[in-house]
């Protein structure tokens, strides 16, 4: 299983860097990008996304936009929050993230997160 990912971040260099790191794992393929939550939601409505890497400080944060939009998504993806600070672990989008990554992302941490994504997916698949 190769997971299809979206990156939501208004810093283009950060998106490119994370894309390269995710592609390196061979287990996650970045198929979509967005510069803000609104654009991300619009693209999630089209479906096909397994996991979303979203910047913790992205424009539009602190609202209930994402939970409100959930019923529109063909499937609810897993969420990973990206932060610039290691002590930030809150949930501004109300999406109960699978995990946090501190930017710039350490490859080892990314491998752990990808392992988490796989575990979570397996749990969902075997759930009766």
């Amino acid at each position: 299983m190769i997971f299809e990912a979206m990156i939501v971040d208004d810093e283009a260099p950060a998106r490119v860097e994370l894309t390269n790191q995710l592609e390196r794992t061979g287990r996650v393929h970045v198929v979509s990008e967005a510069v803000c939550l609104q654009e991300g939601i619009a693209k999630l409505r089209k479906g096909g996304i397994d996991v979303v890497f979203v910047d913790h400080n992205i424009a539009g944060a602190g609202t209930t936009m994402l939970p409100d939009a959930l019923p529109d998504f063909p499937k609810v993806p897993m969420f990973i929050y990206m932060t610039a600070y290691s002590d930030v672990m809150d949930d501004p989008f109300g999406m109960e993230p699978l995990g946090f990554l501190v930017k710039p992302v350490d490859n080892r941490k990314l491998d752990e997160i990808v392992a988490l994504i796989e575990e979570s997916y397996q749990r969902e698949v075997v759930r009766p």
Partner: protein
Amino acid sequence: MIVLVLNAGSSSLKFKLLESESECVLSRGVVERIGSSSAPARFVCTDKRGAVVQDVAGEGYAGALEHVLASLVEGDGAPLASLDDVQAVGHRIAHGGDVFTCSVAIDDDVVATIERFAELAPLHNPPALAVIDHCRRLFGPSKLQVAAFDTAFHQTMPARNYVYPIPYRYYADMGIRRYGFHGTSHKYVSRRAAEFLGKSRRDLKMITCHLGAGASVCAIDHGVSMDTSMGFTPLDGIVMGTRSGSVDPAIITTIMERENLTPAQMDAVLNRESGMLGVSGVSGDLRELKEAVAVGNERAELAYDIFLTSIRRMIGAYFFELAGVDVIVCTAGVGENDPYARRLIFRGLEPFGIRIDQERNMEVGKADRRISTDDSTVEVLVVPTDEEAEIARDVSLIAAGVDISDPYSD
């Protein structure tokens, strides 16, 4: 939908009457020298009746507007039978501050807010307000009137790009921040460029270069403005005809001290005596500058070099800011019509995936076109701008009840 677009400048009123869906122009022109004490205002107009030049009898912007409206309905072959055929009016407004993120239908609150930003655009917002006021009286309250702001498109910029590195209180208390201008043009050409390529703006990283008498460059990420070269005022950024663009700020205080200049005098030096005119001593018009270059005028050549270098520097900055781009667009006078300038701006950039096809670059025309080679990683396009068409488009969307307030919705 028949839309009249009005653009009040510091001493002029431009107008374009067009059909918004087809972008077909029914009449266009300008009233110049408004408020001049030495000569009467002059009306210049072109439509299917040909070109017309007339003196304007009326006073100020109200007189200019009345002359324009009369020209649309009077005489043989007038484009309209009655002013009732004007279905809506769009007004180009220079400054919408940090309030207006898109075009809006004009009401009393909108007028009051534009008035509030008059001090940020003292030469442009007050004339536009005078024209709006007179239009509302002439057309009555039921006619849709829309304000389109030069600054609105850039309201998506992140704070890291609009807060200046000076004491924060100047931003917080006085609104001194980057606003950016030419937004209507950058938005129009970015949309047209995506259409030309058959792609969604939401999947593209672009740099748009509006290179006219005023010039600015914009970094557009997924269809929204991320950064732009003009700043608090249209003086910032790349070198222009008579405007300096960015200079070491200490130069300004040094000159003011040594020549004992007032702020207004210094403002005139930077806005009207600098740029390519200031360096060359010849002209701020690139065509005249190139004629001087052709006969060996070294300062004209230096001015031209400084201009092109400042554009390359800005494109390079945004190329890195966006971590590479998919499309670069050239527009406005120089961008659309000067293949020599385009050649020099993009030369030697093959290592960055930018490869110009010199034959395509030399082609002349008004159509959107590609000037990069088929194997260029970055698409380089020439897209003629049409700010009035973009304003008319917004007007027709608002008339149709479409919510255009979310810059991220498509």
